């Protein structure tokens, strides 16, 4: 299944400056794995050292947040658009 993964602006430098990348995958997890195999430098910005998606990294299939579907096991089909969107968090120590 050919799906389009939209790369957010801050991460394009780690993805060959592409705005989007086509990968072959049956699930969101497979799509992200294919993306990070192709562009290894992306991995540390999407995944923690333990290999889990970072808490502030959100993934949408078309307009659906995968947290509310089957997370990384969410199936994808030909023509789907997978978007990577950060939630922004921070704050002073204490």
């Amino acid at each position, binding site marked *: 299944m050919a799906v389009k993964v939209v790369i957010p602006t801050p991460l394009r430098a780690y993805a060959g400056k592409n705005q989007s990348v086509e990968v072959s995958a049956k699930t969101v997890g497979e799509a992200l794995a294919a993306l990070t195999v192709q562009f290894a430098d992306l991995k540390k910005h999407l995944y923690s050292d333990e290999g889990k998606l970072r808490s502030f990294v959100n993934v*949408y299939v078309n307009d659906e947040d995968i947290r509310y579907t089957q997370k990384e096991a969410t199936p994808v089909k030909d023509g789907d658009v997978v978007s990577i969107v950060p939630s922004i*968090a*921070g704050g*002073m*120590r204490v």
Partner: protein
Amino acid sequence: MIGATLAVSASVAERIRAHGVETYPHECCGAILGTDDDSGRSAIELVPLENRRNDSPRNRFELTPDDVRRAEKTALENKLDLIGWYHSHPDAPARPSEFDREHAWPWYSYIIVSVLQGQPKDMNSWRLQDDRAAYDPETIRIEG
């Protein structure tokens, strides 16, 4: 990125400070829209946003992915890029915390304004290093 500079219009700088004062003693936050090209990076417009961390707004802020998508859409509609984010540190220095670092991406400009006892003080900008190990300071050049 050592040596990076962010041009900020005087009115944008003033609006960040004013937002920090308005929400004090809670953290303010918002999106920074602007341009980034061969001539450098400029902060031109702001999208003030609501801090979603109702449980500890004095020392944390959070924006949802929907907030981010809306800010990206606003940038697109104004033919600008979403170049970064700002927030305040009430009664704390204008430098990023470990919590900030864990929740950041490179490339974005992160402006922090220190608000001490309700008064805006230092305002600094930071960019996360490629290896995520630390931030580099980004020089703010006030224009206009």
